[in-house]
């Protein structure tokens, strides 16, 4: 069971490595979206500083959603997914491994590049830690919830737009708590409570989302 998960994780990461442009696009999208905001609303430093956590989080949300439709699409198209469904290892474990791979190539780079955006927005350096930690805890939740939507919309016409309609409302608590933690830290308060709430969301999502993803995959492929 663990071996199957590890094998799948290795395979997905290898596939992503062989096609670095896919990973790069989502990351570039994150940077571009975040860079558009100052152009739209003006470069007033105080304003930028106050909207930075929200903008970074929204950009992370959109960027992680963009790559979701690819999560199961290729495996579905070439029949690999059906083999996984028929295989002996539990589908929940397979789903969890695929989500982990997705997060490693689309979520983790966001965490690494977020301080750069924070620099653009003149966010005090003391907040980088909170920002990175909140993204580190929050982006896996986004991948887990998003994978449910990706599995449900597998092979549907207009899947991409539909996926955003399904998934974005469910992202809202993560956005509120994630951006809220950075806001709290910038107000000089301890963000521990918000970060713990994020961690709690992560634990709950990590336990239940793989089951939901597995159920959704079964529904979509039967």
């Amino acid at each position: 069971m663990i071996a199957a998960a590890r094998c799948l994780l290795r395979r997905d990461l290898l596939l992503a490595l062989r096609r670095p442009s896919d990973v790069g696009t989502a990351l570039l999208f994150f940077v571009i979206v975040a860079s558009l905001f100052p152009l739209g609303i003006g470069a007033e430093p105080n304003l930028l500083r106050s909207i930075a956590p929200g903008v970074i989080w929204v950009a992370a949300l959109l960027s992680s959603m963009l790559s979701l439709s690819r999560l199961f699409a290729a495996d579905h198209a070439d029949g690999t997914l059906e083999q996984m469904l028929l295989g002996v290892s539990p589908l929940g474990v397979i789903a969890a491994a695929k989500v982990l791979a997705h997060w490693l190539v689309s979520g983790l780079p966001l965490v690494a590049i977020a301080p750069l955006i924070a620099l653009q927005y003149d966010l005090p350096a003391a907040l980088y830690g909170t920002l990175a930690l909140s993204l580190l805890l929050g982006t896996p939740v986004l991948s887990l919830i998003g994978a449910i939507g990706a599995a449900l919309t597998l092979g549907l016409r207009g899947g991409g737009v539909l996926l955003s309609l399904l998934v974005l409302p469910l992202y809202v608590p993560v956005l509120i708590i994630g951006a809220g933690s950075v806001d709290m830290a910038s107000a000089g308060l301890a963000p521990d409570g918000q970060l713990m709430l994020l961690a709690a969301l992560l634990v709950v999502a990590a336990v239940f989302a793989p089951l939901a993803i597995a159920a959704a995959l079964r529904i979509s492929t039967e």
Partner: protein
Amino acid sequence: MRWFWFASPQTFFPLAGSIARWCAVGAALLAAAGLYVGFFVAPTDAQQGEAYRIIFIHVAAAWMSMLLYVVMAFWAAIGLAFNTRLSAMMASALAPTGALFTFIALWTGALWGRPTWGAYWVWDARLTSELILLFLYLGFMALQAAIDDPRRADRAGALLAIVGVVNVPIIYYSVQWWNTLHQGASVSLTRAPSMASTMLTGMLLMALAFWLYSIAASLARVRCIIKERE
């Protein structure tokens, strides 16, 4: 067991028809009574003036919007677990009514907010969660509409409804979680309500009317779905 006898769409069809008819009549009568109490009997509010009278529609619609999502998720879960055709049909029949009430709650809330708060829309936690609830309803309906195979549509929608139902308690507890602008609940089961009894009567009458309307509308819709599919 009579209950399971009615679980079949064929036998449920005539029953749904008569229940829907009686509930529609009851809803009309109760709404007339509730609106009369609300507009002519209930006293003017000391702080909010006449503008508060929108609550007779607003509060009942907001209650129904949240309740209907739970009911929808319940039927969706039953349908997913026991593979009963009628449960899934009930879930898809409830969604438009729920979306309607969510929209009415948001709309009347905006009309109430303008004279009272000075703005049609504020980013208060409750308003925001109600808006998200509307998106959840719309997402549910969009997903079902995008899938041609009714069986897959039912099951996919059911899973989405169950995932989304996590949002309903967040709406309910949002007032306690984020301390914001929306006034706390004035009606609770554990203590005396902080409003005049005629206001409460009007509100409860409207709530009952909306209950009966929801039953009537969703049963009428489920009859259409049964006819379409069977």
